[in-house]
């Protein structure tokens, strides 16, 4: 029987994500590389007490809609609806405004483990590669070193960083085939590529599903063994139009004025 990892529904593809699960969420921070429809589906499912592993914790769809993105929901939908118990992230709050994660953090309603971005990538890769841990020099002498085991190797101080394991990795890619091979676009590989295969189950949200053989073997970035499920975005965004509130408008304006996040 032919291999077929394609699911037809976003609700179905996240149906077995349970309360208390640890989920990796791909992307960098901007919504272009975020699995937006998976975020919406997971929110609809109403799951609670998630531990999340991601670069940021989301900024809300308003700011992205103002920047012209149609698929605009990011991890903030899980944050603002109280679905997250703990976040492991490198950039959990914004330099521009107080995101919902920061509000909950200040209110003592979520836990945070902040990890340097490269260490986050390496700890995720360690889980994927079956390693017990890695020694990194990044963060030595800073707050990140607190409570960590250190070791002098070749005259230099390193910290032991352990793998981050997860139940599900929710990632965004550009194209997939029915085997689960993935390609990305431009600067949108980010943590999507690194997380693929790092969790027990990897679910890829893609722009397009193509026939087996259409993806050039030299160009496939994520070989199919790392991917368990694939689900395609609809051509047109069919979700609710989000309310663009004053805060989103202010954040957007600040972003444009500053020339970046």
């Amino acid at each position, binding site marked *: 029987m032919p291999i077929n990892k394609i699911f037809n529904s976003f609700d179905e593809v996240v149906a077995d994500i349970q309360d208390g699960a640890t989920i990796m969420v791909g992307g960098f921070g901007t919504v272009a590389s975020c699995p937006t429809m998976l975020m919406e589906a997971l929110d609809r499912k109403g799951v609670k007490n998630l531990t999340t592993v991601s670069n940021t914790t989301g900024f809300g769809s308003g700011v992205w809609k103002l920047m012209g993105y149609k698929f605009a929901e990011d991890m903030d939908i899980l944050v603002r609806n109280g679905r997250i118990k703990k976040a492991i992230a490198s950039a959990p709050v914004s330099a521009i405004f107080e995101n919902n994660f920061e509000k909950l953090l200040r209110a003592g309603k979520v836990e945070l483990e902040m990890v340097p971005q490269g260490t986050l990538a390496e700890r995720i890769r360690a889980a994927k590669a079956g390693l017990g841990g890695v020694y990194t020099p990044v963060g030595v002498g800073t707050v990140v070193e607190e409570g960590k085991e250190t070791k002098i190797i070749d005259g230099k101080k390193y910290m032991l960083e352990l793998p981050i394991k997860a139940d599900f990795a929710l990632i965004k890619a550009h194209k997939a085939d029915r085997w689960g091979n993935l390609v990305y676009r431009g600067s949108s590989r980010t943590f999507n*590529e690194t997380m693929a295969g790092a969790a027990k189950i990897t679910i890829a949200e893609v722009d397009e599903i193509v026939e087996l053989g259409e993806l050039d073997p030299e160009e496939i970035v994520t070989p199919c063994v790392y991917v368990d499920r694939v689900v395609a975005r609809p051509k047109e965004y069919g979700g609710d139009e989000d309310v663009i509130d004053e805060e989103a408008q202010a954040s957007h304006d600040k972003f444009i004025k500053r020339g970046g996040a």
Partner: protein
Amino acid sequence: MEEKFKLDRQTIALRAAKEFQDGDSVNLGIGIPVLCANYIPVGREVLFQSENGILGFGEVTAPGEGDPDLLNASGQTVHPRPGMSCFGHAESFTMIRGGHLDISVMGGFQVSEKGDLANYMVPERKIGVIGGAMDLAYGAKRKIILMNHITKTGEPRILKKCTYPITAMGCVNLIISDIAVIEVTDKGMVLKEVAPGWTTEEVQQLTEPTLIIDPDCHEIELM
């Protein structure tokens, strides 16, 4: 007394861009650093790396005109460019941590005499944003910090010891502020250039560590 000028954001970026040589791979941080991309002399080949996984990209596009899948780390759309390459996060930070980038240009809140950098957290806010800062401050071969010389309330940002939580120890090579260019060396901080109208003594007054005045110390050159 001569009129004193402070470099504005664009001018600081312009001065910083002078540091980039042909073939240098450069990561530009959020804020003033990202503006450096606008000041590369025609014909100079500088490779910009962005930690979200692109190397060798071109200029920032006009707002709303770019490809949303071609962003720099500040979230701005950029133009593709011949020779550009794309990669994921593990590879991007292999590049950064592994010392494969020539220059990291970052903003700073404070820099210490020994080159410690504090740029991820304002203590009053109680929450910082580490992001890629610790990796970039550690990994690039040369770290250039762009910042205002003093705080809004007039306190020096260049200190004997940082009072803010640090991003990385002893990592800074060069500070380009709105009034001076200072090199961090094993022997101490060396004042190399001053903004128009400033004396070395005036810069020293706004700088906590004792500066070594470079014999060739001169007015900041922009071209």
